[in-house]
């Protein structure tokens, strides 16, 4: 449904003719649906004006950042936030940065590293919005999810401007909860499905100390960048363990010891994907690593603030690994491989290799929760992949799962990938079936309740949270112009 000339003109008056397009020929660039228009606002005031127009004309809208994923109902107005790409402030003293939605994590991180700082970067990669909420490699240091959003500037689904936390009362961004309105449950909680309605136009993210160099000494050429040397007081290793129990115990002790800059529960397939430059190499490396590991494992980066600090962390790490019969993967001890992983896993630059390169698409069951429970569930969900591997529907990763301890390790993130060819409908259906079955099992066996699923039993089991959420959304969005679904990547 195209916009009428008059309505189009109203939108055009807000952003200028160059920044609106309703030509269907360019829409497939975004997604395979028909958008009423794509609009490029340049600032908060323009977003507010656009949202108000959407309400006036009862048009659904959806914002996107770099555009990786999302759900886009037909005929919606798409706000492409490409022009809102400014780092507003880096406050070193109070350790926060304020960004617009289209600042990508790689840009912010590079600025922060120069200042001895870092922030939580989501596993999707540094090519995504720095504002994106989620989990990633550095969760032991930076935690994840709603821990990292401080004050937020939010254009509500009706076009009102809300400033949360300290911004609501002091014009400072240092806190998400006050003095001023917190709204944490609405703005940054993990309540799915999807994201908060409306548009985040600016957000403050929490910053953390970075013990590494101002920039990595990257040498070589794409697709194989290496480090000319391992930065002082830094080390990367992969450890495998004889059993999940031993791995989990080591993970927990390391978390409690607070010595890891990063602890990422890569499996052998993910290590292989990271360090190789094409699918053929990847397959060969996976076969090699599968023989080299003794069981499940994780990848660790330690970074010392001084030689003594590094020596201490290394000693603790080695003791914990030894106590749990862990074994260091020789391949990763090679300084070239160590350098590749060190840089890639801090600068989060190879997620696409892990997810899209082998088959073209992936599906997963991402879980955040009590780590010991999610590990137990993940073992079964991994095994459930084996028939799909055998039938050739998904990439052979040995039925692997992955996950990692967040903060001190009791809290954790678990995720399982199924990588497949998106043009293979049978494979796609098989993966969806696996996803449904394992999500349901998690609920019925009381491991966790995935609120991403459409399982009708989940809401009633969780105090009818879904009904309350619907009421809340209706109150915020009485005209129903801000649909649910997708993530602001």
């Amino acid at each position, binding site marked *: 449904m195209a916009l009428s000339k008059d309505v189009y003109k109203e939108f055009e008056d807000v952003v200028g003719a160059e920044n609106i397009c309703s030509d269907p020929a360019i829409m497939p660039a975004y997604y395979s649906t028909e958008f009423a228009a794509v609009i490029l606002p340049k600032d908060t005031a323009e977003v507010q004006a656009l949202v108000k127009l959407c309400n006036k004309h009862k048009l659904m809208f959806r914002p996107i950042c770099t555009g990786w994923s999302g759900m886009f109902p037909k005929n919606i107005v798409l706000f492409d936030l490409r022009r809102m790409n400014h780092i507003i402030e880096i406050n070193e003293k109070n350790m926060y940065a304020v960004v617009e939605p289209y600042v990508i994590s790689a840009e912010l991180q590079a600025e922060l590293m120069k200042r001895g700082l870092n922030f939580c970067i989501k596993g999707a990669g540094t090519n995504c919005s720095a504002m994106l909420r989620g989990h990633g490699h550095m969760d032991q240091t930076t935690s994840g999810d709603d821990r990292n959003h401080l004050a937020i500037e939010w254009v509500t689904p009706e076009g009102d401007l809300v400033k949360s936390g300290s911004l609501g009362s002091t014009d400072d961004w240092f806190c998400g909860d006050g003095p001023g309105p917190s709204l944490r449950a609405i703005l940054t909680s993990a309540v799915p499905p999807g994201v908060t309605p409306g548009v985040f136009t600016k957000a403050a993210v929490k910053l953390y100390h970075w013990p590494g160099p101002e920039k990595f000494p990257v040498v070589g050429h794409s697709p194989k960048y290496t480090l000319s040397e391992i930065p002082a007081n830094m080390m990367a290793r992969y450890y495998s363990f004889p059993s999940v129990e031993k791995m989990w115990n080591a993970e927990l002790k390391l978390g409690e010891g607070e010595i890891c800059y990063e602890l990422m529960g890569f499996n052998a397939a993910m290590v292989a994907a990271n360090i190789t430059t094409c699918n053929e190499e990847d397959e060969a490396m996976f076969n090699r690593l599968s023989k080299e590991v003794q069981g499940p494992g994780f990848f660790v980066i330690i970074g010392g603030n001084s030689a003594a600090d590094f020596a201490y962390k290394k000693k603790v790490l080695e003791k914990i690994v030894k106590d749990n019969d862990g074994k260091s993967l020789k391949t990763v001890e090679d300084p070239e491989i160590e350098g590749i992983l060190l840089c890639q896993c801090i600068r989060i630059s190879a997620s*696409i290799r892990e997810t899209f390169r082998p088959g073209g698409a992936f599906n997963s069951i991402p879980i955040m929760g009590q780590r010991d429970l999610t590990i137990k569930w993940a073992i079964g969900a991994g095994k459930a992949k084996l028939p799909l591997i055998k039938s050739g529907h998904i990439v052979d990763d040995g039925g692997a799962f992955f996950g990692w301890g967040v903060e001190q390790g009791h809290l954790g993130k678990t995720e399982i990938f199924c990588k497949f060819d998106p043009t293979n409908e049978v494979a796609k259906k098989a993966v969806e079936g696996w996803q449904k079955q394992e999500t349901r099992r998690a609920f019925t066996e009381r491991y966790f309740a995935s609120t991403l699923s459409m399982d009708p039993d989940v809401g009633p089991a969780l105090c009818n949270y879904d009904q309350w959420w619907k009421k809340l959304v209706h109150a915020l969005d009485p005209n129903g112009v801000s649909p649910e679904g997708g993530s602001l990547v």
Partner: protein
Amino acid sequence: MSLEQYQADMGMCCRCSACKFIPMQKIKGSSYSYVCPSIARYNFHAYSGGGRINIGSAALKNGMNYTDKLLDVVYNCQMCGGCDTSCKYAMDMEVLDPIYEFRIKCIEDGKTNPALEKVMANLRKNGAMVAGKGERGAWAKGLGLKNVTKDKVDVLFHVGCQTSFNPDMWKLAKATANILQKAGVNFGITGDAETCCGSRAYQMGYREDFLKQAKKYMAIVKKAGVKTIVTDCADCYHALNVLYDKYELKGDIEVMHISQYIAQLIEKGKLKLKKKVNLAVTYHDPCRLGRLGEPWIKWNGKRKQSDRFIFDPPKPYRRGVNGIYEPPRDVIKAIPGIKFTEMTRIKEYSWCCGAGGGVTDSNPEFATWTGQQRIDEAISTGAEALVTACPWCEKTFNDAIKASGSNIKIYDIVELVEKAL
């Protein structure tokens, strides 16, 4: 070759936006992080590499949906290949090739750009991409250079359209001739008989015109009996060395860019750079000498889909990393007195000057804007001069300087070498 051939590649795009930026590990901050001029200037996702191939994918499914906006997207792209290099850091898929095929399809369907049509009319009539006055060999009058149409030489100096027909660029041809003479090279030019190599016709999407031009060009080369061609134009280098090979027209001719040739002459002791040139400089990698200048790789294989897709035999991807990167740097660094500093976006993830893909003709404002971004980056290094290795880059940068009022100087590498002789 056709768009259909790239269906599987286009279907691999996950819209991750890596194609918009330089590789993530190379991003040094909030400035100079983009590799694609088109998305940086026009903002809609359609102007990015990923956007373009998703449109291509939809076209295969639903047919071409020609509109003014679509053609605006198609022709506002320098075909610089930055998207291709950035994507291939992580993915096994072609990006620039299907973008080329989409543009070629537009031309074949008659959905052309009026400004480009004018340029092509001149090519068909005069054998040149530049509507110059006078004769192609006018720059060489009085220099007493050998001519390959009548003299036996070891090396053919191919001058190219921009240098030949733009009197402001004659200095580059003269400097090159002077350098080759000083080094005692037995070289010649084709003079008025030189014809366009076809490079820019190809960039604009006119594949058939490129092929006609390439065949004409190679007929002249074969008649002259030379085995080595040296050119100081990156666009010509790309056509002669890469495209001619791709279309099996190159034969056993050795093609060298002047920066490679000078580097060799210095290494062999045939050229001595003695005079000091006290200048702080930075170097711009022309796209078609750098990432697009890497040799063509002949591969005839099949994509095999099992649990993961692989190629049989393994496909050696052109990822832009084997272009001509070190020779120009070696030459610049060999000049006494030069202080050399790198910019942020270099080598395989260099920012385009703005001239490619016919954009100088179809949208001069966009070409100048793109050049200005590069000028800003050069200035940020503290350089007094930006050195490049292509007359199209030099012209676009000079246009950008005029527009911005900057006082940074632009030199071609041969101009600097000549100063040091």
